[in-house]
């Protein structure tokens, strides 16, 4: 009780005297920044997920080869989510003499739960939004199916035992993101499926259950779905639509990283401010000790005092954070997803708890130090308490930070890279700074007085200077890291989806048609992409044994490549978006193949293993020579299996290629199909536009976070300069008493902060490169690059930021009468 009373009294005294100003300001910046970041990250992330769900056609999709049993479906009702059932199968569709293998999608009246279904009345025309599938007895066809079957709206087609009227042309179909299944699409009413008699026990059917609803319900659903059998595939939320999954995943990592870095910035501010606060209270503590307070009481008094300050700083910080995030989101409303979800209470709580725990972790070393103040200090001021075991203090702070960061991001890899990288680098760079300062000392001997004095001040306060360099360089390093990663991500997305990325595939080109086709495109100024020969084949044996023998009876559930016929190609050159991960690219021997990485991992295949394929009735075996990483998001022809040239040439190959067609030239497709009646055109321009939109919004989101973290970084930098000014102000006051003019003082300050900025900036460049490199490699999975400009840019930024901050901080010294400074 005594401690609380004393703490409150000291608090009000310190508050009035302005002692708590810097500490509270640092808390405000740290917690405000953190809260704003968490709320913005949370809202933008949920917004992006919602946009992705438009592509997916639902918030969550469960799919399986078997109809889900009634008991399981009953369980899903508990989550109070909207549900739409559907199924997908391949079957022959007949129209008079014509027949075509088609991918049929049967949907109920609730489809689609997200996104827009658009149905047109003519091929390649713009459709009208519609909810619910076609009425019973009617089907909607993809434009190319109409062409392949040579039918028009109003004609009748046959599916199995039933006939249907063609009621519309599919313009946009949510959930149509399967770039491996090339069969033309058809949508029918779920209630008509039974009449066709096509779906029988043992048929290859994919049952699809779409769900949509509020986030809390979806979170509960996600938790429940984790326990489901592996044969039931669940996508949506974290596991987004395949086409945007990796882009979105990277954006999430980046948003997490921004949050993490603002947390680190906050930690730097809190550590410095609380350390300064404690240092300035050694005299008070010594006096209280003299008056009879025990060490633990001192600890309690100052702990409580700090807790009160933290509470006020936190509340003010949360308010500031909320206002800031409103401002940020309002300012960028046109660039972010149209409808951002509301503020989640969780994010605010996260910001608040994270801030408080960080305060506790980083103020603890200072608190333990003030506890150790000797009462003898009232007689001898130079008796500063020994710094608590440096390593122990560091360990406590780092453990706290690691725990908070892991909790905050749920991304241990990211935390490890940032924390371990940051710590290791700081140690190395501090050593370098120490050596550089030593070198500067030699140079200083021959310099003019202002320069010598400025440098001298740094050298004489070596410990404090190193701490300042460390703080500045950590701040600049975090800003550099975020900037570098942001640049890489944007250019990687840009590379992945350049402005005129192909948005139409052409398949079934006969070998004899490849040249005329190329010519057709050339004549119309349409750049053609590479052409790949393609044959379809099914894997029939792995190392001489059937898939069932190797992987068990449920082998079809294991991987796409075992479920259906694969598109096989041959080429002597490694496709440009592919990266060799194992083995060598040597396509000279006929009985060799290269397979895709994920397929190799799932099917436990390695170079040397043999796969047997059935291609049009012929069996052919080949040994795996290499494993490739394939970028499935690239919207270019990609293959699970690549053969060497010559191996499949007698198997009746057709060719596949892709090209870009702007929306206004869509009618050209009709001309193309007239000239090449046997080819199939797969349009994915709509999907691509949606994916591009999600990526653009993700880009804006990461730019927004970059700006925000830079602003927080600058605020922390200013707070850091202010926190370290006490001694400087005293010394400058004394110098002025002895006759030093304002110009001299400014020259000293500029020299001192110039060196600090230069060293901190140089260290930040090294650190930023290293951390960004590690992040590219381990977290974002993109190739690292060296940034020569950073080695000039970061030191320049350091100087440009630190020097004005130092001059601004010390400006009072040249204005206030030195008498008052010396009396303080």
């Amino acid at each position, binding site marked *: 009780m005594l401690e609380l009373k004393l703490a409150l009294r000291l608090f009000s005294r310190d508050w009035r005297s302005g002692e708590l100003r810097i500490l509270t300001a640092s808390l405000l910046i740290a917690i405000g920044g953190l809260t704003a970041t968490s709320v913005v990250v949370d809202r933008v992330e949920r917004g992006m997920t919602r946009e992705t769900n438009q592509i997916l056609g639902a918030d969550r999709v469960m799919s399986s080869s078997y109809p889900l049993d009634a008991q399981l479906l009953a369980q899903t009702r508990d989550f109070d989510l909207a549900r739409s059932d559907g199924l997908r199968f391949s079957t022959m569709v007949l129209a008079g003499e014509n027949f075509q293998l088609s991918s049929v999608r049967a949907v109920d009246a609730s489809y689609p739960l997200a996104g827009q279904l658009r149905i047109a009345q003519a091929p390649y025309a713009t459709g009208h939004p519609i909810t619910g599938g076609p009425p019973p007895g009617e089907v909607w066809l993809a434009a190319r199916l109409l062409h392949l079957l040579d039918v028009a709206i109003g004609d009748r087609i046959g599916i199995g035992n039933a006939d249907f009227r063609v009621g519309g042309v599919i313009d946009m179909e949510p959930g149509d993101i399967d770039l491996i299944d090339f069969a033309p699409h058809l949508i029918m009413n779920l209630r008509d499926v039974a009449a066709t008699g096509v779906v029988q026990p043992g048929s290859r059917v994919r049952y699809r259950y779409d769900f949509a609803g509020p986030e809390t319900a979806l979170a509960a659903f996600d938790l429940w779905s984790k326990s489901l059998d592996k044969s039931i595939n669940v996508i949506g939320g974290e596991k987004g639509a395949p086409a945007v999954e990796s882009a979105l995943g990277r954006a999430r990592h980046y948003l997490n990283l921004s949050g993490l870095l603002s947390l680190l910035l906050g930690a730097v501010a809190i550590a410095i401010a609380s350390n300064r606060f404690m240092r300035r209270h050694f005299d008070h503590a010594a006096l209280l000790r003299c008056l009879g307070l025990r060490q633990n009481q001192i600890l309690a008094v100052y702990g409580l005092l700090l807790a009160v300050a933290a509470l006020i700083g936190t509340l003010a910080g949360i308010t500031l954070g909320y206002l800031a995030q409103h401002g940020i989101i309002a300012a960028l409303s046109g660039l972010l997803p149209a409808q951002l979800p509301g503020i989640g209470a969780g994010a605010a709580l996260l910001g608040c708890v994270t801030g408080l725990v960080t305060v506790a972790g980083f103020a603890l070393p200072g608190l333990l130090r003030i506890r150790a103040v000797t009462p003898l200090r009232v007689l001898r001021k*130079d008796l500063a308490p020994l710094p608590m075991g440096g390593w122990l203090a560091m360990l406590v702070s780092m453990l706290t930070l690691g725990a908070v960061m892991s909790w905050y991001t749920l991304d241990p890899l990211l935390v490890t890279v940032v924390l371990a990288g940051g710590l290791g680098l700081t140690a190395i760079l501090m050593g370098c700074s120490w050596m550089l300062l030593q070198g500067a000392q030699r140079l200083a001997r021959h310099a003019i*007085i202002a320069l010598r004095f400025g440098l*001298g*001040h740094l050298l*004489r*306060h070596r410990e404090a200077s190193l701490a300042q360099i460390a703080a500045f360089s950590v701040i600049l390093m975090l800003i550099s890291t975020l900037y570098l990663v942001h640049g890489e991500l944007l250019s990687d997305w840009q590379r992945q989806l350049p402005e005129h990325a192909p948005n139409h595939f052409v398949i079934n080109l006969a070998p004899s048609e490849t040249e005329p086709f190329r010519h057709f495109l050339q004549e119309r100024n349409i750049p053609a992409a590479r052409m790949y020969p393609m044959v379809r084949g099914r894997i029939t044996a792995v190392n001489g044994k059937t898939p069932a023998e190797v992987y068990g009876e449920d082998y079809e559930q294991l991987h796409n490549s075992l479920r259906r016929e694969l598109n096989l190609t041959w080429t002597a050159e490694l496709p440009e978006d592919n990266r060799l991960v194992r083995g060598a690219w040597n396509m000279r021997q006929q009985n060799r193949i290269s397979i895709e990485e994920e397929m190799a991992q799932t099917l436990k295949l390695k170079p040397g293993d043999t796969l047997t394929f059935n291609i049009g009735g012929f069996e052919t075996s080949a040994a795996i020579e290499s494993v490739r990483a394939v970028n499935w998001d690239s919207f270019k022809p990609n293959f699970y299996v690549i053969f060497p040239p010559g191996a499949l040439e007698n198997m009746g190959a057709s060719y596949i290629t892709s090209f870009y067609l702007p929306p206004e030239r869509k009618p050209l497709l009709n001309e193309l199909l007239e000239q090449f009646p046997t080819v199939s055109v797969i349009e994915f321009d709509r999907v691509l536009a949606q994916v591009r939109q999600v990526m653009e919004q993700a880009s804006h989101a990461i730019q927004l976070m970059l700006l925000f973290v830079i602003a927080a970084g600058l605020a922390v930098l200013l707070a850091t300069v202010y926190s370290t000014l006490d001694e400087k102000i005293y*010394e400058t006051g*004394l*110098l*002025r*008493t*002895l*006759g*030093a*003019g*304002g*110009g*001299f003082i400014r020259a000293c300050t500029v020299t001192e902060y110039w060196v600090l900025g230069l060293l901190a900036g140089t260290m930040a460049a090294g650190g930023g490169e290293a951390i960004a490199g590690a992040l590219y490699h381990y977290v974002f999975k993109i190739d690292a690059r060296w940034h020569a400009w950073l080695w000039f840019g970061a030191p320049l930024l350091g100087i440009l930021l630190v020097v004005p901050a130092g001059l601004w901080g010390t400006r009072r010294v*040249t*204005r206030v*009468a*030195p*008498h*008052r400074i*010396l009396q303080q």
Partner: protein
Amino acid sequence: MLKVSGLSKRVATAHGDLTILQDIGLTINRGESVAVVGASGSGKSTLLGLMAGLDTPTTGTVSINGTDITRLDEDGRAGFRARHIGFVFQAFHLLPTLTALENIALPLELKGETSAFQQAEKLLADIGLFERATHYPRQLSGGEQQRVAIARGFAASPDLLFADEPTGNLDTRTGSHVIDLLFDLNSRSATTLVLVTHDAALAERCNRVIELEAGRIVKDS
């Protein structure tokens, strides 16, 4: 040499304005040694600060060698101090990160002397601390620190030296040594000495004693 007229200093407090000095007028001639005495709170240190140009008065003027320093801006006063004024403080106010030698050389360097360190070494030898040249203030005793501070005060050969309770932090014996040193250097350099003190022995050694009470001069003898 030093002329003070109509000097007042008021500061704002929570309970209204507080007058620290009121209508002070005095003249100090070259080479004089003057002790300003008075009870605590009588305004001695404030008067010293104003006379030395460390602070600005509410009203009145302070002229040194014919220059009204109250009309100068902060930078102008700093330059004036560098050329004409030396200081010795009760709390020594040595720069903690400079050695004894560097502390003494500092005013010379600020004045632009090229042989600052040679002169400082000589002064250090004069005060008997030559062998402590590379020691930092924290490595020196209180008396030694004050000796270094006195040497620093005289280093730039000021016209006027202001000392604020120079023996206030020292025991009698050390204080007496420091006073000897102060007057010894003063006589050698013919500096005008103005000191604020509670120490009767110190006041007695001055040519003149000015007594303050509640911000006014009550005795000048």
